[in-house]
Each structure stands twice: as structure tokens, then as C-alpha cells.
């Protein structure tokens, strides 16, 4: 950790906090494991900082954190390195296997892991629904009565042609006036 102490403390403090938050977000709450992992990640970041000076320690530390976790997912799940969604599959497997509560000791460890743990992780998958079985709904058109047909014709005319719509409004207004005229006689 010498190299870490040499740098501006505020940068490394931020890096420390970010890595710790990231592990917290993975629900790693065991303090002993947490401090060990944070130390491990920051040490790796510090080594890289020597090779690439000028890069923000937070970025380096988080790159290391994501690399370490991805490598671990790859190993446990036995995935090929060119698969782009390794982190997603790994996190999901962790979640479904409930690693933070059931197998915390295995997390980011080098192995060997128990067969049961590996199987649980590898079997973890998610299915939002059963297999599709596409089948159509049979639509049937309405058969209107004669009155319905007249009404539908009028309605279509009124809704499609603006002129008839105006005319319909005027007819209604006229009828209202005629009605008022009649009842006031």
C-alpha cells in the first residue's frame, strides 16, 4: 500500500469509498471479507497507477473491481472470455444463488469451490414466462341490425367528413332551440 499513501489522500479516499460501495451494492456485508477485498482491489489499482500515471485512482480501482468480479464469474460459470454479457450473467447467478447470504466465503475466492456451489451458480437462470405457444384469437366482425347500419353510416359520415360534423352540431343546436321554443309556448 506504499504507493497509495504516496498519492493525494482525497483521490484514494474516494476510490476506497467507491469500491466499498460497489461491494456493498453486491450485498457483501461481512466486514472482514469486505476490507480484505477492498485492500486487494486498491493494491492492484495502485500498481496500475504506477504504469499509467495521471489516471484518476477511482477509475483505476473500479476498473480493477469490475475486472476481478468478471474474471470470477467467468471461472465459476465456466464462460468463454469473448461473451459480452459475463457481468450480467454473473450478477444474476449471484442473485439467484443468493451468494451474499449462502456462499459468501466463495465470493471472489480462487477456489476450488464445492460442486454444489458451482452447480447452483451455473443452474441459475431466469424465466419470465413459460415457453411460447403462439395461437391466434379469432376475430369476427359485428353484424349490425338495419338500425345499427343506418346509425353506423351516419356516424362514419359525421366523423370522417368535417362538414357533416359541423352540420350535426348545428342540427343538435337547432333542435335544442326548437325544443326551448316549444316548451316556452
Amino acid at each position, binding site marked *: 500500500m506504499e504507493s497509495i499513501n504516496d498519492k493525494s489522500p482525497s483521490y484514494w479516499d474516494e476510490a476506497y469509498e467507491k469500491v466499498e460501495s460497489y461491494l456493498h451494492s453486491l450485498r457483501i456485508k461481512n466486514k472482514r471479507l469486505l476490507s480484505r477485498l477492498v485492500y486487494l482491489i486498491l493494491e492492484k489499482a495502485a500498481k496500475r497507477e504506477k504504469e499509467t500515471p495521471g489516471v484518476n485512482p477511482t477509475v483505476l480501482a473500479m476498473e480493477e473491481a469490475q475486472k476481478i468480479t468478471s474474471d470470477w464469474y467467468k471461472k465459476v460459470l465456466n464462460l468463454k472470455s469473448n461473451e459480452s454479457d459475463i457481468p450480467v450473467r454473473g450478477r444474476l447467478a449471484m442473485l439467484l444463488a443468493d451468494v451474499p447470504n449462502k456462499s459468501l466465503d466463495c465470493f471472489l475466492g480462487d477456489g476450488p469451490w464445492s460442486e454444489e456451489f458451482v452447480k447452483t451458480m451455473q443452474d441459475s437462470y431466469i424465466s419470465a414466462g413459460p415457453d411460447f*405457444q403462439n395461437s391466434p384469437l379469432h376475430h369476427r366482425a359485428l353484424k349490425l341490425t338495419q338500425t345499427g347500419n343506418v346509425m*353506423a353510416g351516419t356516424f362514419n359520415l359525421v366523423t370522417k367528413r368535417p362538414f357533416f360534423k359541423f352540420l350535426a352540431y348545428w342540427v343538435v343546436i337547432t333542435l335544442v332551440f326548437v325544443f326551448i321554443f316549444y316548451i316556452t309556448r
Partner: protein
Amino acid sequence: MVNKAQETVDNQEMIYRSRIESRASRRRLLFFTLTFIITAISTLFMADLFWRLGFSFARICILILFCILIWQISFGAMHALFGVFSRPKKKLFDHITRTIIEDSESILLAETAILLPICNEETKRVYEGLRSIYNSIEKTKQLKHFDFFILSDSTNPDRWVKEESFWLELCQQLNAFGRIFYRRRENHYHKKAGNVADFLRTWGKRYKYMICLDADSLMSGDCIVNLVKIMEKNPSVGICQTAPAIVRGESLYARMMQFASHFYGPVFQAGLNYWQQNGGNFWGHNAILRIDPFMEYCALPKLPGKEPFGGKILSHDFVEAALMRKAGWFVWLAYDYSGSYEEGPPDLIESAKRDRRWCQGNLQHTWLVLSKGFFMTNRIHMLNGIMSYAGSLLWFIFLLLSSFVVYQQAVSDLSIITVHSFADFINLSVTEEGFIVFGITIVILLLPKFCCLIHSYCDSEFVAQFGGRFKVTLSVILETLFSALVAPLLMMFHSKFVVFTLFGKGVGWGTQNRSAKDGIAVRTAIKAHWKQTFVGCLWAYLAYLSGNVYFWWISPIFISLIISIPFSIILSKVSVGSFFKDNKIFQTPPEVNPSPELLYLEENLNKNLFTYHKSEAYQNHSGLLHLITDPYINALHVTLLKSIKEEGTIKNIKYLHEYGEKLLTDGIDALSTVELNSTIKDPDALMWLHHEVWLRSANNLHVSWCNVINSY
């Protein structure tokens, strides 16, 4: 041999069908003839009154309206009357639920899907309701026959993310992966009906039945299992609807509705079942449907013209029942099953909002009434639905015309010259005859309440659950008074809705607010009711000019309108509701003796069983913030997206990076809802955002991200 056996079964089925049909015909004849007689007597007295006063154009209009409206209220009153007399005879075969009593244990269940269509609903309530139903079915040891589908149409990105993570947590907690499924639609075509249709197209053929729920539904395992048994036992039944009782009401308004649902509901439903028999209706939720005929015959047709009056059908349930019946399948009401619940709106304004949608949906049914091939019972259901709203407009016109006639008479200074009545032996003055018409109307209006009250007095166990005879009588009196004050307000709302719909002003299918909080704000009440207050004042003034007598006659209407703002606020208050609750007014059986599933729901709602979301800390956008920062929620969302991702739906990467950059540096509020939605629909964008939000230092991130990160 097989043919002969099949023939015997067919013959038995025909005999069974004809028995039900002929019994239903007799009952309908009796029911509607009695309704007609009451309408005829009332109309005769009204016509005679006008005859004596002298007919005018206005009076003819009033008489026609009176005839229609008196039919409507008589129709309602007959339900209560027939309900009271048909309820005690519980051994009658006309209850569909009785068909499984003898061999209930031996009936095997079939594969059933329980559907929960949701759209931006309160996530916790929805999932706790589902947990309760799941738990209740598990207790029946029949869980293996049921799959649960959360069918989301949510457009709010926060809700969407919450729904996914809650689903995952629920599945983990109940060990229900492969039993509870979650699906969100990309497009929201045809709202709830489209949501269910989408399920049917995708998975429908895997199941024999489906039970449709609403976001606020709750059903007991026993009720659900029995519904499946009914369907298995009765192969001619296409839909079996339960009668959901309203529960969990807290405000005064909700508690009143709740009381009415529990106290009057069973009697009305018995009356409804008396005449509709196998020609029942579907209310959209808390019902079981046979999937094969539903897919074959119940796809919704398109109506002539455009929305709101034509186009896509908004209220699909009545239409689906009518289509099912048209295809020869029975639709029954299993009204005597307990264990079917729903929640009501907390206040008058929320209730009016819901009615706005229902009004449009029901008015669209005019096209179905004018279509060929439907059964008369279904046409009656649809006409009744139309009249529930159009009736309000007719009442309004009726009252306006009556007021006008009285006002005209008053300002004319002419004295009233009357002639003899239609029958000389009825030696009545005009005033006396007026009172008779008024009396008949009031009797018809209050008959249902009276019938229910008498019915409750005869059943000491039943009445005890409502707080005893004294409390129940007081509750009915108060409910009648409050309803009388609410009725003119609903009349005004509904009249407006009908006119708006007819003049082409449509409505969306928004999310219903089901929780009561601390009542509505004064500003909200003023905004909703100021026009009603104005109309009330004007009406009172004109009534005053028309003379003292009329002023007092019409006063219940204008007083309700004038006090609408404070009255609406009082109705929405939980504290007022609690006062009545403490005094055992509007008490309902589930409050005294709650069912296990209701208790379980309440218990879990008070706990915080869903832990992935720290929603207390981030009231706004909590779902979105966690979607991008939380490694698990992000992974879940991306996985679900990838499982439904179709070819050709890839978004413009350049724009997505622009949105992503904005999101990280300027926060969630920097993006519009459309931009947010397109971002969170893209799995690659989300993986990139998750990577970036953790990688960047605080200087390159908006403060909201730093706050969430620090909170882990």
C-alpha cells in the same frame, strides 16, 4: 359403443340446457312483468296528473322521461325484492355453486392461469395481494395446478423497474420461480383487453382456464379452487363470475361504499341471479373463464367509427360475456362464494374519474345492442350499463324541465284549473295525486334498502356482523342520507361525461388511485366541484322565484350541489371514516371477522418484505436510480429485456449514448419520459450505464448518482 355413449351424453346435455333455459324464461317473464306493472302504475298516475293539469309539450317530455326513469329504478328495486325471497332457499339448483357440493373432493383440477394485468399500479399492494392469493392456494395443496402471470402495461419507468425487482424478490421468498411469471408489453395496444389477449396468443393454449384479477383483487384459495371445480363439473359454462366485496376502505366515502357492497350486495346479487341464470355477465375481474371458447369466440370486434363512441372497445367485459353467450356457452354468477374481494375508490372525485372511463365504455355498447345475434339478457345487461350513465342525464333533464314548468306557472300568475281524474271513483285532489306519484317514487327508491334491512333482521348471525340491529339500522339511515346527497353530484358528473362522450371527447385508461391518504385537498375539491356549486346556487334562486313549496321540494338537489365542495372533502377524510368505524357505523363482516387472506395481506403491507428498493430514501425515480446503480436490478432488467428483444428493434446507438451521457452528468430529470423509456428499453445502453456510473469519479457524475452510490 362410443357413439352411443356420446349420444347419451349429448342428450343429457340437451335436457339439462333446455331445463335451465325454460326455468330462466319463466323467471324473466315474472321479473320483467312485475317491473313493467310497477312502471305502468306509476306512469298512469303521472299521466293522469298531467291530464288534469293540462298537457303541454314540456309535460309530454317530462312524462316520457318519467316513464323511462321509473322503469330504471323499478328494475333495481325488483332485484332487491326477488333477492330477498330467493336467498333463503339455498338448496335450489339455480346456484351454480351448488353443483359441486356432493362430489367436490373427487373433482380433479385442470391447468389454470391466474392473470394479474397491471398498469402503473402501486407495486407493493399488487405484489402483496398476489403473495396472499399464492399463500392461500398453497394451503389448499392444489398449487401445482396454477401458474401466476403478472401482465404489466406500465409506462412509468420507475414502476416498471420496481415491478421486476419485486417479482424477483417474491419468487425468491416463495420459491416460486417457474410458477409466478412476469411479462411487460412493449406496446400497450387495446389496454387491459389487449394485455389479456396478448397473454392468450402467447401462452393461452397451455391452460384450460384463466382467472382474471384486477390490481386490487384478492381471492381466497378455496374460492379459486372451487371455481375451477365448477368449470370442470359444468362443461357448458364459459365464464363464472364471483361477486367481489369491497374491502380495506378507510375514508368515509370508501366505508359507505364498502358497507353498501356487503349489506345490499348479496341481496341484489341474489335478485340478479334469479332472472339472469345462465345468461350472466362478466365484470372483468375475479372470474374464471374457459380459454378455448374465449379464444375462439370472444376476440373483441371493432366498432363502427372512431373513439370515444366507436373504434376499440373500452369496457370489454360485458362484450366478452355477450360473445360467449352468443356462441352457446353459459355465463353464471357465483354470488354466494365468500373470499372474493376488491377495493373501491377512496373519494368522490376518484370515483367520478373511474366513472368517466366506465361511461365511455358503456356508451360504446350501444353498437352491440344494435347488433345481430346477441341474447336478450346480454342486451339488457348492456342497456342497463348504458342507462347507469345516460340515466343521470335523463334525470337532470327531467328535473330541469320540471323546474321550468313550475317556474313558468309561477311567473305567469295564472291560476291552475284542473279537470277530473281518469277514474271517478278515485276522488283525489291534484295535490293528493301529486303526493301519490311522489310516494310511489320514494317507495321504489327505498324498497331495496328496506328489503335488505328486513332480510338482515331475520338473520341474527348476519346482522351481528354489521354491529347489531340498532347499528345496522343507523348505518342504513345514514347511508341513505349520504347517498341522497351524493346522487345529485354523480348526476352532474355523469351528465357531463355522457355529453362529452357523445360530442367526441374521449378519455384514457389511467391508473386508479386506491389509497385514501388524508383526504383530498381543498384546491382539488374546488376545481372538481365549483361548477356544481354554481349550478346549485342558480337552481336555488330560480326555485325561490317559483314559490315556497317548490323551493322546499327541490331543496335536496340544490343543497347537495351548493355544499358539494366541503361535502366532498368530508367524504374523503380518513379521520371521519375512522370516527364512524370506532362507533361501529358502516361496519362490515371482514372488519369483525377478517378472512385469513385479508389478515395476511394487511400484515404484510405493514412489513417491508421487499428490500431491493430503498424507496423511502429516493421518493422520485427510485426505480430508475437503482436500475442503473444496483448490480442485481440492472442484471435482472437486462436479462428480461434480452429474453424478449426482437430483431429490428435496435435503437439509434448515437442517440442512446447522448441520452446516457446526459443521464449521468445532468441526472434523470434532464431526460424526457420518452427519452428515458427508450434508454431503459435498450439492454446495451443499460449495461454501459451501469459500467459507467460505477467507473466515473464524483466530478463526472450528477449528485443524485453519488447519493445513491453512497447509500449502499
